[in-house]
């Protein structure tokens, strides 16, 4: 089920295109990453999803409810933390959660204790927020997003301020939420490596545009992988792969193509038939991180 659907969403602020016609989806039980360098438009997109920013163009639906026409319905099904988990510092964590529960009704109040224990804050929940570390605030931030048992969870840089153990715990919590309760999670980060492991899919955003959409599902028995073909005629090889419907990139003396393992022998035959001289083949599984850096560091890495 599509929990979140963005269709050609754009945002202009002071005549500057911050987000340019973005489309994306998050399904139930899925953890979707939203990665991009600082200033790429991640937070702007998330603020639009959560109703903090108006849309210049496009449509956003949460659980089928258009946020522009059915805001209250849409917001009942989503929880989130945007930027820093800024809560009311002068009162306790519990009072903060009680306050936010008041927007959802009785059930949310009953959820306070379970949610607090889920984020492992039961011991200190009655202390003043101002005495919490950033990591603890992040936990309360997550807790307030879960009070009403949302179908969709939207987290903006949730690992900020967490120590390695905290990050690991967060990953496990999110994984269990999505796999056990079928919650869809949309999680943004500027560090791909932190979320790569838990994401089913990743959207990479740069300069307000989604420049890459990757499926990271590794549990498939025959996954698409990336191979390097050392060839004599790179252009010809590329033309072949494209004709066969495979993603292709040419480099000096070699071509990168993505295909299932089963398709490799067929490709060797095909290239030979095409008149391409094939010298060697190797698995070119670069990390997503390397791709990410490549993709986003065009224009000398300037932030736009």
């Amino acid at each position, binding site marked *: 089920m599509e929990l979140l659907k963005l269709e050609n969403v754009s945002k202009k602020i002071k005549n500057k295109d911050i987000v340019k016609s973005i489309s994306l989806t998050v399904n139930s039980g899925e953890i979707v990453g939203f990665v991009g360098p600082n200033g790429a438009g991640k937070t702007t997109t998330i603020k639009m999803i959560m109703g*903090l920013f108006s849309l210049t163009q496009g449509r956003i639906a949460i659980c089928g409810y258009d946020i522009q026409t059915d805001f*209250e319905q849409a917001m*009942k099904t989503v929880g989130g933390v945007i930027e820093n988990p800024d809560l009311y510092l002068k*009162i306790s964590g519990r009072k903060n959660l009680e306050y936010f529960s*008041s*927007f*959802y009704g009785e059930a949310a109040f009953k959820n306070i204790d379970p949610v607090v224990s889920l984020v492992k804050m039961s011991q200190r929940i009655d202390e003043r927020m101002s005495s919490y570390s950033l990591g603890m605030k992040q936990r309360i931030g997550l807790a307030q997003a879960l009070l009403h048992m949302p179908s969709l969870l939207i987290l903006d840089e949730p690992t900020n301020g967490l120590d390695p153990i905290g990050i690991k715990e967060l990953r496990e919590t999110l994984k269990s939420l999505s796999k056990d309760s079928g919650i869809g999670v949309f999680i943004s980060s500027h560090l791909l490596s932190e979320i790569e492991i838990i994401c089913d899919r990743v959207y990479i955003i740069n300069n307000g545009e989604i420049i890459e959409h990757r499926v990271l599902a590794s549990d498939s028995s025959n996954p698409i992988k990336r191979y390097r073909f050392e060839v004599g005629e790179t252009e010809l090889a590329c033309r072949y792969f494209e004709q066969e419907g495979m993603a292709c990139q040419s480099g000096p003396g070699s071509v990168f193509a993505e295909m299932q393992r089963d398709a490799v022998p067929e490709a060797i035959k095909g290239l030979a038939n095409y008149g391409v001289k094939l010298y060697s083949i190797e698995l070119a599984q670069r990390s997503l991180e390397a791709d990410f850096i490549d993709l986003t560091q065009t224009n000398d890495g300037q932030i736009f």
Partner: protein
Amino acid sequence: MDFFKQTATELRMLFYSRALTVLAALVILVSAGIPFMSKFTRSRMRTVYNNYAFMKSDFGSEEPIIVDGITVNPDNPMFYEIRYMKETIINIESGSIFTLSTEGSAKAAIEIAEERIGFFAQCAQHIKEYSYSTDVAYMSANLVAESYVLKSLLEGSASASDLEAAYMSIAYSHSFSRQFIELTPEEQQAKLDDINRRIADTLSYFQTKEIQKYVMVKKCIENDNIEMFKMQIADLEAEIIKNPIKEDDLSMQIQELAKQIAYINEINIPMLDFREKYSIEPNNDSWENAAIASFESNKAYIFYNEIIDREKFASQQYYTDQYKTYEAYVKAMQQMISDANINILISQRSLETGKPDLAFVTDGSRYMAFSFLQSSFVPTALSMMAGGFILANEFQSGTIRLLLIRPRSRTKILLSKYCSVLVFSILVFALACLVNMAANCLLFGFADMALPKYTPGGQQGFFAFYLPKALLCILPLLFSVSFVLIVSVFARNAALSIVVPMVFYIASFLVTQTLAFSPNNAWGWVKYTPIPYYNIASLFARAADTYTSYMSRQVYSIPMGIGILTATSAAFLAAAIIRFKRLDITN
């Protein structure tokens, strides 16, 4: 239903703020403390209200004077008069008063002075310190001289001219011959009897301090004055016949004198009637005296302030500056005269029923509770802080991001916050009023609360009078919360949204103060702004009015204030909602 629940939750959030609850508690504590402070300061200042409190004889170091076996100590109020008469006798004997050229006149003058000394000595037996009785003694001293003159005339013991010279050297007469000489012996005898009776009455009043005798003595003195004015009028009228050229000038003087007679008849005599009827001793702190004083000052106001005609109005710079148009002047004057008439009515009703209006019991719990409404600016300031805390701080601390992702429209969120601040402020204000009233009742008596407030149409209970005014004081709260709201939404900074309305608030006091003293009512447009109505309680008529609030009431009306405060609050609220709905949360 949701909305009320949400407002209640927001209210709870306000009470979670320690700073705010401490401030609210402080406001309530001070409200309870004010009556105690008033009690303390009033107990210290009580004597200030007595005009004679600080009057003391300056002859403390001199020897007492003994007159006919009566010892008059130097601290006695009569001491000075006796001493002065003794000095006069020495002067007459040494021949240094040139008007007393004959032996007969000098002898008569000495005898008049001795009669006076005797009279003062008798007064001194009963009057030990300065009071209104002292004045009566001074005013009655002439009677002794009159009695001497009449007696001498009837006995033929001195010549008329010697008596005139003697009399005029010590006492005063507008026309000695008409007052004494031109009378028939029968008339002289009747007058002598009357004067002797009056002297006896006066002394007996000093002895018994009976208020009826006081009134009798005072009325005779007033009648003497009237007689004198009438005589002066007759002289002036004769003068006009002799000198028709001076008619304008003289008839103006006649008018003035006629006015003085009217003043005595319309104001002084009715006041004495009140004293006689309700046994009101002059010059003490009783409410009856306050009522009489109010009767007098309001009567006098009407007496001296008649509406001048259009021509005279146009010719006087002061009026044209102050009122601009003749119509405005007439309207203002009519209003003031009508107010004065109401005050006169209130005085009369209070005296008739024996139940004082709150205006006359300034140390009563009613008046204290009513005056406390003037302090409603304190809860108003508190409401600004609450507003800044609950609204602007959301932006500043970033909590707004976690707030606006809830399943509530922004309008509902803003309104529930707005209402909670309003409810909070009203609660604090109401509690402050209640606590203050309770403390006032404890210190200044519960009984006062049961007394009525008089209106032109009749009377009402204190609460019927008080509640609408207390409710009116909520309007400035409404306005300041709306003000904080709009600044919060536009500036999104807690400090600014508290400081800006606060500065405006203080400035509005200063502007109103300054304008009250501005000679020609400058800045007429100010009355169309909330500025003069921010402290709406200052527009309530009070017994002890300040000049500022008195002047303010002439220009700014409460209905106008209600309209402007409500309209601006609504406009601010609407603008804030519109802005807030469209706002991109960039913080």
